């Protein structure tokens, strides 16, 4: 496969796939962590996702 003259195009496509998908996963996880942190500043049950907020 590495002998193919267009091997770099294949590698670039998959590398880009990892970067784009990784970025989507990371942005969602970072957003979740910051929301949890912000909710934790409120007292009562605000941070418990199982219960409705007051």
């Amino acid at each position, binding site marked *: 496969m590495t002998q193919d003259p267009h091997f770099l195009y*294949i590698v670039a*496509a998959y590398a880009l796939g990892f970067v784009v998908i990784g970025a*989507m996963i990371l*942005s969602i996880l970072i*957003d979740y962590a910051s929301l*949890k942190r912000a909710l934790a500043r409120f007292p009562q049950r605000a941070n418990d*996702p*199982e219960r409705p*907020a007051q």
Partner: protein
Amino acid sequence: MRNYANPTNFLAAARVATPILATLTGALLGVGLYLAWFVAPADYQQGETVRIMYLHVPAAWLSMFIYVTMTFAALGSLVWRHPLADAAQKAAAPLGAGFTFLCLVTGSLWGKPMWGAWWVWDARLTSVLVLFLIYLALVALWRTIEDPGKAARAAAIFTLVGAVNIPIIKFSVDWWNTLHQPASVFRLGGPAIAGSMLWPLLVMALAFTLLFLTLHIMAIRNEILRRRLRRLSIQTADADRSEFSAPASLGTAR
């Protein structure tokens, strides 16, 4: 099913479903990548470059599937004004933009060695570019309008208008002369692709669909928490304001 339409129940279900879906997605992506790189044969004309197909085609399918999902959520927003439909709409737009971007760039990386051009303004490529711009416009719209209810209604109307682009993308290769090849999997006469290439493609497509489902659930969860945070912030601000204004009003009453 109606139970899960309640945001609080949805959060509880998401907490259980997310790790299961993430594990399934990881396993299926691993199998799909192995099949795509080491089992599927090279094409007799395209050689090894055909391996880009296993990334490009699932991303292309998802770009349309996500838009259809958003269209149903938009109907839920407009007809039932359901907060979960609003969250589903908002959460899907950046994911749709991501997969459409992936589709466009991998297509370009496939097109250069096969067609000799990074880009051509043919109907399929142009209509997918329009889809990408629609996704970006929706993301911008959600960020521009502060009131979540108003933003949801505006985004829903925009999404429904933009839905006309989906059949254009699908049938562009039949309606116009395009450099892009016609459909080779979902066609009337059955798939025109060899089984040894079709199976890895279907496994990758299923893995991508599960990936979207997992990320969508996680992003909807974030939107529910964001609304909760907004509500709590407003309540706290109101409580602070009434605390400050209470002595003043007592003073004037005297």
